């Protein structure tokens, strides 16, 4: 059966990824009939109303789903289609209460026009009472207007019209519930509620599953996963981010604010390169927004130069039992970190478990950072959020069952040594380097240096 999904026109590249993931989660067959990043309307096929509801009621980027009664370029054609295809459905809705609404995308209709549009459906012969709030059945006429910045130039009629019966609204209200502005404890790098919830959906968070965030910060991702019923763990190299000021102003306080504390398995202070997590394939999902080294340092345990820092090593030996002891840290290669995340996910995820992480990259092709790969992980989907000169991508992988892994590629990977060299944060992190140079190319940078030298002379 055909259904019409009304999406929000935002985060376009995430929309299908989310719906497909939710279909996997609900165990529902989903076929996309027509979809475009430019349109909020998407035609799909679901086996039943229940299947459509199961998928959409957890969606963040969809607004609602409708039983599809017709699509046409003009209202007259739409009426013809509805009369031709759906007459057998009309008696089902003849008696119960109902309502017809108008949803104009990129356009607007006056109250008078709306009434006229609604009345044009009188042939449906619904005799039930019209209820504006919570009717038994709700029908919507959608209009898609052309993008026209000057209202006077507007075309006289929309480009396309759709009609459908409401099946279910989505979980979009959750964005408001988890809004960072209303959250007691956040930091500069907290993920906004909409994208955190979308990430949890794409990673298939669900009741009874185990999720872990190795760069937990203030807990945006675990909170989102817990909302969907998963048991969550988190860790961070900086304990202060989790402890906060204590009480309400802490990661635990955030879980309490939403009444989700029973889903918090625990948080601990640790570094991914020296993780205390037991190597066993027990996690259903790993979600993280690793540090990019721009707003926050990208560090791991260790000394920058063990020969020079002998004293600090010696001091560590004497002092490490002291509760106030802070172990030394060294800069970490961005690329090595991505590799470490993939290796960790390979060791920890159950078959078909998902790893979803955010990774920044420059928009300029020359400076783009490649998608990291691993023989045991298959890329499921890549979604991109574009900023001015850089973007961040949400990359989602699926842990392949061992029987599907390319053994030769895996052996080759194990042979390759970590080739990251260099000591400064800039040497180790191409993204950070480009970011602080304003994403200029090497030639542009040369020109700038030449100018400054000329000015000086």
């Amino acid at each position, binding site marked *: 059966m055909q259904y019409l999904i009304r999406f929000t026109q935002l985060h376009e590249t995430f929309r299908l990824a989310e719906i497909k993931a939710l279909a996997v989660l609900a165990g529902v067959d989903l076929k996309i009939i027509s979809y475009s990043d430019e349109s909020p309307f998407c035609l799909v096929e679901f086996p039943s109303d229940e299947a459509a509801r199961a998928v959409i009621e957890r969606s963040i980027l969809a607004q609602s789903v409708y039983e599809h009664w017709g699509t046409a370029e003009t209202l007259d054609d739409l009426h013809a289609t509805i009369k031709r295809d759906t007459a057998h459905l009309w008696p089902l809705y003849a008696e119960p209460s109902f309502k017809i609404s108008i949803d104009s995308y990129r356009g607007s209709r006056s109250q008078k026009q709306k009434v006229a549009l609604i009345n044009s459906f009188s042939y449906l012969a619904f005799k039930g009472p019209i209820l504006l709030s919570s009717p038994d059945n709700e029908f919507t006429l959608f209009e898609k207007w052309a993008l026209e910045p000057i209202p006077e130039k507007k075309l006289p009629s929309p480009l396309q019209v759709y009609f459908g019966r409401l099946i279910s609204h989505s979980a979009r209200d959750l964005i408001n519930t988890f809004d960072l502005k209303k959250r007691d404890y956040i930091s500069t790098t907290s993920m906004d509620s909409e994208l955190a919830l979308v990430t949890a959906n794409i990673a298939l968070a669900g009741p*009874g599953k185990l999720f872990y965030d190795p760069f937990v910060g203030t807990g945006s991702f675990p909170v989102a996963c817990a909302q969907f019923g998963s048991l969550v763990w988190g860790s961070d190299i900086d304990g202060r981010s989790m402890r906060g000021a204590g009480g309400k102003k802490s990661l635990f306080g955030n879980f309490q604010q939403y009444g989700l504390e029973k889903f918090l*398995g625990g*948080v*601990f202070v640790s570094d991914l390169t020296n993780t*205390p997590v*037991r190597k066993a394939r027990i996690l259903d999902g790993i979600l993280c927004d690793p540090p990019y080294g721009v707003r926050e340092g990208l560090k791991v345990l260790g000394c920058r130069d063990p020969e020079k820092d002998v004293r600090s090593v010696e001091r560590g030996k004497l*002092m*490490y039992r002291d509760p106030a002891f802070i172990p030394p840290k060294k800069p970490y290669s961005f690329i090595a970190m991505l590799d470490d995340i993939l290796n960790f996910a390979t060791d920890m995820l159950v078959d078909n478990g998902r790893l979803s992480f955010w990774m920044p990259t420059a928009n300029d092709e020359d400076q783009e950072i490649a998608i990291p790969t691993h023989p045991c992980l298959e890329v499921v989907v890549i979604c991109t959020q574009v900023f001015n000169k850089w973007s961040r991508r949400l990359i989602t992988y699926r842990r392949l069952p061992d029987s599907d892994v390319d053994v030769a590629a895996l052996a080759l990977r194990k042979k390759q040594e970590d080739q990251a060299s260099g000591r400064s944060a800039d040497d180790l992190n191409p993204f950070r380097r480009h970011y602080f140079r304003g994403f200029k190319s090497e030639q542009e940078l040369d020109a700038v240096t030449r100018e400054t030298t000329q000015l000086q002379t």
Partner: protein
Amino acid sequence: MKVLSLNFLTCAVKTCKTQSTSYPLHPKDAELVQDDIELNQDFLINLLPRIDWTALSTTATELGFPALPPTPPTSEELRADAKTLRDLHSLLLETQMVEGKLVCASCGHEYAVREGIANFLLPSHLV
């Protein structure tokens, strides 16, 4: 953190990873609190295969809980056995370790637990 977490954690020192004595970590001077959480049978049954039963038995005994059966129940057995369900739920999900230390039996390193958060950062000579 929940007692369940102890089943997923081991010593962070790399050379200890290959030593069987490094897992599980042994709680010392542990201060526990008990939450009240509604029992979810499916959740526990789903969790069961991911638990290292021997390690859990050790942890339970060390924290002063009654001894667990020597072998893990199958999911059918667990479904039929309300008492074991109740006990496991209480141990794994309702009990939290808030203060104390976690000790590795292989290298002797003690990881401090404060306000429910364990610290696994290592000094440079152990990295």
